[in-house]
């Protein structure tokens, strides 16, 4: 067994607000090995995007990050100077964002922006950088790559732009790639293409990948490991098969019941639902954050919740946690 390339323990992110401190991410743990894909799944406000930005060291100044351990390839990211973080970003760890329409600088050509990613980290001439750009554009399935170099972002469709973003992230062959909702803004048909491209490249280049999404369908198709986040906590994590076939946390189960699955849910019948809304994370949050919406909540849910485990891979935070009978409805 190899050492994880990314190891996170008790990562916490606090946001100071006028009304108090918002505990947006509350002590999460996960590990990721080379070649593995971890999907962080959760609804809006669960802290999944902040987690990915925290790993990259891209949280904005006001946000406070702390962790017992935040190690990337043996480097303690918590203790690095901004300069070192810069040399890692874009080189050994790269990121793809949600909005391909706005994530490229409108003032510069595709070629400029791709080359920049390379030139920042490699001693190379501009010509070499552009050659590398053409190579990667080809790799992400963009035809007539050379002619694209002189184009501006607004001249490309959303799908193409997301491919450019992927190419940009891969310019320096990173060891870790973080994709934050990379297909949310795209059409379904394009979404499938982009996801497939990502999955193929990840396998081909043997990268570790974190994919942040709210779409359980994507998770199921692409993840090796899944971390389900709710209200700033990872409430359940494990292999994709474990999570989907044997969900333990009531929230995970609820989510799975909510989505209509062609062939499984009967058309027109009631879908499962999770009543209520996500609680406020401002101020002190104690016990299970889900208990207000949970149909099996008990008084002891207000106490600290220990982590439960089943095997090496499957863990969840719930005082219940016995396997549910049958498949999720």
């Amino acid at each position, binding site marked *: 067994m190899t050492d994880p390339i990314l190891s996170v323990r008790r990562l916490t992110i606090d946001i100071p607000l006028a009304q108090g401190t918002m505990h947006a991410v509350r002590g999460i743990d996960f590990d990721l090995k080379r070649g593995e894909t971890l999907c962080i799944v959760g609804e809006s406000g669960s802290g999944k995007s902040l987690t990915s930005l925290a790993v990259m060291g891209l949280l904005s100044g006001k946000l406070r990050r702390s962790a017992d351990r935040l190690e990337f390839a043996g480097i303690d990211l918590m203790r690095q100077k901004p300069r070192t973080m810069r040399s890692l970003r874009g080189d050994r760890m790269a990121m793809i964002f949600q909005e391909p329409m706005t994530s490229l600088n409108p003032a510069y050509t595709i070629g400029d922006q791709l080359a920049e990613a390379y030139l920042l980290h490699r001693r190379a001439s501009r010509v070499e950088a552009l050659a590398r750009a053409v190579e990667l554009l080809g790799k992400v399935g963009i035809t007539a790559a050379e002619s694209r170099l002189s184009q501006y972002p607004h001249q490309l469709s959303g799908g193409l732009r997301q491919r450019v973003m992927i190419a940009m992230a891969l310019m320096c062959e990173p060891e870790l790639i973080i994709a934050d909702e990379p297909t949310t803004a795209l059409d379904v048909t394009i979404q499938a293409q982009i996801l497939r491209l990502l999955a193929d490249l990840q396998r081909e280049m043997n990268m570790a990948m974190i994919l942040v999404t709210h779409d359980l369908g994507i998770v199921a198709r692409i993840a090796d490991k899944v971390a389900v986040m709710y209200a700033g906590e990872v409430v359940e994590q494990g292999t994709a098969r474990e999570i989907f076939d044997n969900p333990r946390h009531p929230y995970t189960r609820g989510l799975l019941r909510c989505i209509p699955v062609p062939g499984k849910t009967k058309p027109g019948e009631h879908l499962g639902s999770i009543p209520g*809304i996500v609680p*406020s994370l401002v101020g002190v949050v104690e016990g299970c954050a889900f208990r*207000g919406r949970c149909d099996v909540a008990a008084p002891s849910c207000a106490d600290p919740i220990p982590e439960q485990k089943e095997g090496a891979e499957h863990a969840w935070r719930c005082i219940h946690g016995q396997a549910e009978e049958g498949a999720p409805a």
Partner: protein
Amino acid sequence: MARTIDTAAQQIRTASPAALLRRRIFGHYGLLFGIVVLATIVLIAAFAPLLTAHDPYTQDLLARMKPPFWMAGSDPDHLLGTDHLGRDYLARLLYGARISLAIGVIAALISGLIGTAMGVAAGYFGGRVDLVVTFLINVRLAMPVVLVALAVVAILDGSLQVVIMVLGLLLWDRFAVVMRSSVLQVRDLEYVNAAKAIGCSVPRVILSEIMPNVVNNLIVVATLEMAHAILLEAALSFLGLGVQPPTPSWGLMISEGKQMLLFEPWLIAIPGVALFVLVLAINLLGDGLRDVSAPENKG
């Protein structure tokens, strides 16, 4: 199956918009300063007769240019001294607040009506209306304001009414620009479509769906234009083509005091500072309103 999603967690989450606004206003010192100073000036203007025993028009040629209280030779009866015709400077200053405020408010009102009508029409109807309005805005922007205002006032002679009308008719451009873009932003929001789909008439859509959502921009522009109008009037008066004496306008007082600039600088310092403070207060009010109505665009 409960159709009601109401549970213990399901409270009305945040404060009402009004309460939020209140909270933001009291957290904004610039805005508070603007409100307090402006309110003070408005009160001064309203109660000017109670604040001084002097009439701003009564001249006393034997008591000309008496210095204000902090200077040697001052007359305790004239706290801020007297002007070149021996009129009480404090009285003129207090009554002058009325003139400046009237000019600011009425000019902003007139230009606001014109500009808002044009901007809203352009933003809402788009197409040819927009083309015409944009063209008019371009024409208006291309005309040098001070020059045109001077020319018109020179033609029509400078009474208070004429100055106000000219400024009102000239300063509508920013209203039109801002209202046009605000309405453009709001126009395609879905609640406007919803209102149309419900069957609302065009006036109703504009007045009850669009206007309430752009009115804060309107107020911000109105304050800025008010300040603009006050400054422009002062400049016109300074150039001798503003309101006419003996009206105690601050701009006119500076223009009159300018004659003795090198020897009696307090003659322009007093109305100058008053003008500066008034404009400052209005600007701070406007800036503050913009900040509290759209805190994310602070700046």
